[in-house]
């Protein structure tokens, strides 16, 4: 089978000044939520610039991610971690007792909420 060549994005595609999407705004909001719970000393390394573009968001996210990856979170991490380089010795077999059911089961009638929305679409 021949190797398939994959075209690159256009030279003009990169636009770091693009306004943030709702997705990135939500990501920033979550980071701000975490930042507000850090100590003043921990926040010293976090830039406080205006964030409207993708690149500005990336600069802030970079600083927050580095801080969090260093182990500075609201709660200390307590996972039982194992090295990811664990040797893969024997071939794995699926665990027994797999429980699988159809995910498209017909919906059951529900008790409707008494609250009514006054919101308009």
């Amino acid at each position, binding site marked *: 089978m021949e190797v398939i*060549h994959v075209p*690159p994005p256009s030279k003009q595609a990169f636009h770091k000044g693009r306004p943030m999407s709702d997705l990135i705004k939500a990501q920033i909001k979550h980071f701000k939520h975490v930042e507000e719970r850090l100590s003043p000393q921990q926040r010293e390394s976090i830039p406080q610039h205006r964030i409207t573009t993708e690149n500005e968001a*990336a600069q802030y996210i*970079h600083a927050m*991610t580095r801080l969090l990856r260093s182990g500075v979170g609201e709660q200390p991490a307590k996972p039982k971690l194992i090295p990811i380089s664990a040797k893969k010795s024997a071939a794995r077999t699926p665990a027994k007792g*797999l429980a699988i059911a159809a995910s498209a089961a017909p919906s059951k009638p529900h008790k409707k909420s008494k609250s009514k*929305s006054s919101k308009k679409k």
Partner: protein
Amino acid sequence: MPDPKLPGLKQLQHIVVLMMENRSFDHMLGSLKTLNHAVDGLDGTETNPDSTGVPVSVSPTAEYQSQLDPDPDHHFPAVDLQIFGGVATAQNPNRTPNMQGFVKSYFNQQHSVKHSHLIMNYFTPDKLPVLSKLATEYAVFNRWFSSIPGPTLCNRAFAHYGTSFGQVSMDVFYWNKQFKSIYERLNEAGHSTRLYYYDEASSSLEVVNLLKNQPSLFGTFQDFLDACDKNELPEYSFIEPNYTDHDSPDGMGELIASDQHPDHDVRAGEQFIADVYNAIRNNPKLWPNTALLIVYDEHGGIYDHVPPPSCTPDTPFVAQPSATGTPDPFYFDRLGVRVPAVLVSPWVKRGSVINDVFEHASIPATITNYFLGNYPQRSMREQAANTFLGYLDQPAIRPEDQCPKFKNLK
């Protein structure tokens, strides 16, 4: 329930999930129907009425960038309009999921009739050589739906936890201790797992719980590539693409978004998918024992013709009208719009088309069932979700020369 004696399952050691952003099935893969009638794609006759009532046909004129700006609305009320055509309440007997509200929904953002028609555009296979080739050479899902008719974060929550804990929005401070993430489950049982975000400047969308509280679960995309090279890939890996165009944190250049979220260039995502695939495919110690799922988090407001089915309610969670922005509460008893999903493995039959219904809760359901077995503390939706490893069902591994290879051009 897959047969554990299947040769592909006996060999399977690693599962990798790559979750891209905001494209519908028909937009990306609908044209595959012209190559294989088993694919539930487009025949060219599908229409949506625009705001003047004129029917707008699907069109094979999707472009890599610039057509879907502004970003099509995909919050809950907009998706409700897209699916139900504007019949907003269940009290109305005419409310059926007819997929007739996509053009109207896009019109609401700019009030441009002409621009609203672009939501019906789709790609032809030649424009998406990676995704199309993988879909035709391995297995494509005809019925993989987003978990919620809503935006990114609540949908991604289903991939991590098997539930969104009752949330239907981007304001997802959802985490509680009721259901553990798939990563926590695996760790506690002594299995290896990682979430790989692209780099620290793009980071993860799973900020509020995992990145904050368990940072050691994470790695960068370069870490993923290194793990593949060194045969140190965890048993379960979840990969996030680059979400922004940004300067490289090390000052070494510019990094283009690869998530395919509108209005990012789709070609960058194609190359990213190829990078993930190549890292596995080109390592003979990984390729026979690794399964790769490529899936999109939600449809991004872009047209798809298949009505989402009802599903097992995610009891006890209910989103009230104040949260849904619609007249009715939502019981998590209907799936979101269909998204592209492709299962890659040399143990998958070439050209498979899978018709069972899947959603993102199928991801933790599959990983949990395979690595942990019986695990009762799961959401109702995850307990009901189908699992996908049964499609690694070939009696022998496919020959090397029958598995495609990609080379990214610069």
